């Protein structure tokens, strides 16, 4: 009888091998992305060419010339510096602010949940349009923010139009748009932390700061890494906000990679240089995310080991 049960359950006909299954599952996603890999490689080829759309006859391989020329090009170093500075400032500020807000909203309540969804609204505003609205709000004449600034004594605050405050202003818009992203991820993280260590610490009268730095932060680390990774990738590639606010100006204050590459392609139609810039940007993001992913995996392993 028992044998019959086993017999009946035996597989018949086509069956997917256990070894092939995971490949089969990830294959469609991979294929879709491979389709995108081909143009990527094409761009790599472009980056090794002297290639201006307006001078098609002069198109030829110049191998590393596009890259080598960057070394002696102060504009490139400025771009690199501004991009890293921008990404660094926005990510750090958004992380701190996002964490603070998440901690304010940590307690589960209808009001807190409602506020957290409301705070997502900036994220739902397309950055390009958000920048446009901020531009209006910081207009020295009609802008409500300029008006408010003048009320608190900043009569002549020039926002995005002065080199000394342009970075600050654009960072402000970036913070406005993207802090909610970090906030929601960290809020989720905070709320999923086990309660016991905190209760124990509270009972033992452990100082709050100690709890925060020794318990909360380490346990939140994987969330922080994920949020930082996605933000960093977007931030170092920021285009919409900067382009809409200042087009990279004033002067060369905000000529980050994507703005430079965009202008190089669409205005100068210098495809070779544009592609080389983007490949370098890609290499930087690849390098940074590699570090992040390694740490992320390590932290996950550790968390898994503890469980």
């Amino acid at each position: 009888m028992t044998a019959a049960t086993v017999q009946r359950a035996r597989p018949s006909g086509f069956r997917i091998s256990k070894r092939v299954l995971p490949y089969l599952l990830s294959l469609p996603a991979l294929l879709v992305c491979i389709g995108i890999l081909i143009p990527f490689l094409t761009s790599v080829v472009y980056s090794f060419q002297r290639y201006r759309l307006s001078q098609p006859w002069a198109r030829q391989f110049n191998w590393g010339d596009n890259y080598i020329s960057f070394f002696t090009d102060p504009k490139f170093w400025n771009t690199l510096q501004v991009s890293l500075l921008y990404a660094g400032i926005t990510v750090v500020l958004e992380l701190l602010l996002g964490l603070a807000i998440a901690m304010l909203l940590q307690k589960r309540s209808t009001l807190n949940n409602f506020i957290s969804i409301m705070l997502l609204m900036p994220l739902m505003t397309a950055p390009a349009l958000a920048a446009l609205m901020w531009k209006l709000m910081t207009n020295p004449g009609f802008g409500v923010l300029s008006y408010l600034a003048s009320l608190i004594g900043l009569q002549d605050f020039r926002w995005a139009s002065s080199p000394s405050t342009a970075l600050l202003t654009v960072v402000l818009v970036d913070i406005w748009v993207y802090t909610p992203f970090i906030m929601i991820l960290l809020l989720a993280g905070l709320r999923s932390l086990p309660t016991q260590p905190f209760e124990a610490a509270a009972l033992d009268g452990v100082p709050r700061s100690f709890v925060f730095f020794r318990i909360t932060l380490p346990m939140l680390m994987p969330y922080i890494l994920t949020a930082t990774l996605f933000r960093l990738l977007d931030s170092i590639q920021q285009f919409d906000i900067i382009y809409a606010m200042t087009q990279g100006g004033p002067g060369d204050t905000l000529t980050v990679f994507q703005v430079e590459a965009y202008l190089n392609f669409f205005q100068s139609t210098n495809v070779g240089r544009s592609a080389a810039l983007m490949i370098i940007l890609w290499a930087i993001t690849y390098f940074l995310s590699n570090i992040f992913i390694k740490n992320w995996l390590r932290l996950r392993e550790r968390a898994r080991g503890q469980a």
Partner: protein
Amino acid sequence: MYEKEKDLIDAFMRGQVDRRGLIRGLGALGLAAGTAGTLLNFGQTRALAADFDWQSHKGKTIKLLLNKHPYADAMIANLENFKQLTGMNVVYDVFPEDVYFDKVTAALSASSPEYDAFMTGAYMTWTYGPAGWITDLNEWIKDPAKTNPNYAWDDFLPGVRNSCAWNGKPGGELGSEDAKQWCIPWGFEQNNITYNHGMFEKAGVKVPGNMDELVAAAAKLTKDVGGGVYGIGVRGSRSWATIHPGFLSAYANFDQKDLNVSADGKLSAAMNTAESKAFHKQWVQMIQESGPKDWSTYTWYQVGTDLGAGASAMIFDADILGYFMNGGDNKMAGKLAFAGFKANPAAKAPTPNIWIWSLSMSNFSKDKDATWYFMQWASGPEHALFGATKMDFVNPVRQSVWKDDVFREKLNKSYPGYVEMFDASAPGASIKFTAQPLFFDLTTEWAATLQKMVAKEVPIDEGLDKLAESINGQLKEAGLG
């Protein structure tokens, strides 16, 4: 349907009724002016049909790429006539101006056969032409079999027409003998002064006649009008568009150039001369003293919006920007006036640099002959007149339109001083840039340098020397210098 109206129009076509009589007559028949205009064009369309086989591409469809612009709107409003005339179908994509040229570049660089013709500026053809994306239109213009006899190529303002023709040699003179007609001018802008005469009166400022007066007037306006109003609006964003309007028009008036062309065709930077430095000093000073506070983000839109909303007392920008701001629901509508401007006291006349909205034919078009049918209609005298009189198709590029009484009367009535301004500056109006493929690189860098100077990050002399050095380097790198 409109039998009586048609009779009246036919009478007009036969010369029995003059234009004003016609419009009055149609008005008496209870037709709105716009409808009258369309009907009038029906009549003209039928007249056109008499001399040329407009129907030879019947049934074909062409696709246009258009910028969201009054010119495009005027064309679309009149498009039914073209379809009737030719039996062709026309479809079109309209993109917002903010992204329009990026879309054009994306479509053309992909060799997309989707669009047969598209709107462009003359500067862009310096890229599109050498890139092989657009067609030399001489082949069609000069072929009587393909172009209708009423087209009147000579009717185009010569300076504007020539500005759209280039031989493709870096530094080559526009409109030279061997030039290729990369595009057909459609409408154009001269850069002059539009001012708020109420504010001028209040501050007791006269219309400035040269650069010194302009700087002084702007400063006085900023000081005396009050209410946060500043003296002069000019563009300042980090873009080529900052250089080409008022700035270059005034610059050119001092006989200054962007680039020098040597006898052997090599290009070199020309903006670090003593005269240029002196001019830059004045210009920068003017912005610092009397420009918008966030000048470095100013594009066409902000310059116009401020003028229309009464935040600025004058602008030195496209005349048609002033034109638009004098109408619609703008706060300052009807309160603006126009003036030609010659920056150089020694110059005889204004020398405005111009922007030309034009039509180009895509090299990837599958049926260029059919496309040309559309282009010759859209740039033809009938449509030009329709657009200028019934829609906001200013500034028209055809001399015949400027001579048209209805058009002049319309302008004089609602835009006092506009016609005079135009007449004064039109003779000197042309593209003041040197045609060459690095136009956008170099001009954007020029704008960035200007921003640095206004922000006092770099002294003017040093900034210009550095700019010249950088430009010379880029020209060499591209094999042009």
